């Protein structure tokens, strides 16, 4: 057990945990957009910044990828932290002025109209979709492209991602809802990646329930399941 303090309250952490994780477990309110407990921390959104004192040195750092260490003191709401967070929110708001989550944050921290040129991209480059595709789904259909101000997330070469199984995990995890999934009787489209997959119909009830490509993929990665298992929808199995 590692013991340290957050805002003067002593907390306990296990080996390998990060500061943000421990803080959230203990009910501290630290805003964050690019952190998900099932995925590796990435430190992209910079919202979870806190002041950490280790020994004689105090510094501002992101808590999502800072390891919980014995005896450190974490401050989540000092003047410096709030100032840094406000700056981050202002930058995020300038990049994506139409996202409700960011608008709510701006209201909470009383950030007005940004001083910077307004963008219109809803993607904040948090990298959650890319990480979920790589770590959880394991198909790596999308990744970061370009550098600097041209950086974005998308399929390789920005053409129809051939490995995407259309599971929608990226849309589920996206904090700003900029990845949309559209579905009708015959096909499912992941709009942002430009991937359209034809849907398979259940042999028993005739409703379409999943893309052909996805079920083929499941058939490949699972063993010992009879092949007709994937012909029926979950309700008819």
């Amino acid at each position, binding site marked *: 057990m590692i013991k340290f303090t957050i805002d003067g309250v002593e907390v306990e952490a296990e080996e390998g945990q990060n500061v943000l994780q421990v803080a959230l477990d203990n009910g501290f309110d630290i805003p964050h957009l690019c952190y998900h407990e099932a995925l590796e921390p990435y430190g992209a959104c910079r919202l979870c910044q806190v002041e950490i004192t280790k020994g004689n040195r105090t510094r501002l750092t992101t808590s999502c990828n800072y390891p919980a260490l014995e005896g450190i003191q974490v401050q989540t709401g000092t003047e410096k932290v709030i100032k840094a967070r406000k700056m981050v929110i202002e930058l995020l708001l300038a990049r994506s002025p139409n996202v409700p989550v960011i608008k709510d944050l701006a209201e909470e921290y009383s950030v007005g109209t940004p001083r910077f040129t307004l963008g219109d991209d809803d993607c904040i480059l948090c990298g959650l979709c890319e990480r979920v595709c790589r770590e959880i789904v394991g198909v790596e259909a999308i990744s970061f492209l370009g550098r600097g101000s041209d950086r974005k997330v998308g399929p390789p070469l920005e053409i129809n991602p051939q490995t995407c199984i259309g599971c*929608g*995990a990226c849309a*589920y995890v996206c904090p700003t809802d900029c990845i949309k999934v559209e579905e009708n009787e015959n096909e*499912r489209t992941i709009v942002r990646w430009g991937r359209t997959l034809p849907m398979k119909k259940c042999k028993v009830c005739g409703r379409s329930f999943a893309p052909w490509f996805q079920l083929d993929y499941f058939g490949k990665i699972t063993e010992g399941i009879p092949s007709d298992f994937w012909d029926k929808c979950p309700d008819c199995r």
Partner: protein
Amino acid sequence: MEIVEPTNVYAYKLITKKDYFAPGHRACQGCAEALAVRLVAKALGRNVIVASATGCMEIISSPWPFTSWRVPWIHVAFENAAAVASGVEAGMKVLMRKGKVPKKKITFLAMAGDGGTSDIGVQALSGALERGHDFVYICYDNEAYMNTGIQRSSSTPYGASTTTSPAGKVIPGQMTWKKNMPEIAAAHSIPYVATACPSYPIDLVEKVKKAAKIKGPAYIHMLSVCPTGWRLPPELSIKAGRLAVETGVFPLYEVDHGRYRFTEKVEKLRPVEEYLKIQGRFRHLSEEMRDTIQKRVVEEYKKLVKKVQMTQGD
């Protein structure tokens, strides 16, 4: 988030692994209500204060000297879960204003069974919804007073045999129709009303998160299959929940600021027969009564479709 539930297999891996409703409680085998409570606790996380009315969930989660709750939890009488939750909310607001409690986002959850909601607690609930407290009310509807021995409530569906509406020579089970509680809540013009079912876990978690996020009162009606009271094999409780949705008996929808939306679209309803025949409480039903139920279900579903079309149009 409009994700088609059964195929989004990876979303399940993204629900938190932490349990705030601990295992080892005394629910019956196959209890879908305990499952629902667990998912709700997962969705709301650490900063929550729960007021729980008397009912199954109170007796199974807190037999002295144990408790299953890893978050602050208050047990209250049958009728006043909503009143207590609104009191806690008002109290915390004042404490935060005076600086005695650090300011943070806390969700206030009131939960009760169908008896505690639609029979005994309806006036406390109505009052709390009307006053506009920022809280979430969840009704776990297992369609009778299960913990005291399966007595009928106003939420018991037509034709169901319970201990106080036994099917026999005199009456063929419950003779009244199920009270439409979500519509009663929606009639208060509150920001958020939804129906959910633990057979659709991602849908449930998303609705609870949304309800907690919205400012003002939110009401969620949760169909919780009760294998004991419904005379159903425990392994079929998830299937029964899915059938309830697929047959149109319990459609999944939400009312977000007055706008109706189906969260689980059923293009072609399955026959109600499929849902009724697996449950022992309906086994006495005559052909005629089944037809009556089928007709009513389709009628209610059509009404809902109309509401969706009407409010989504503009």
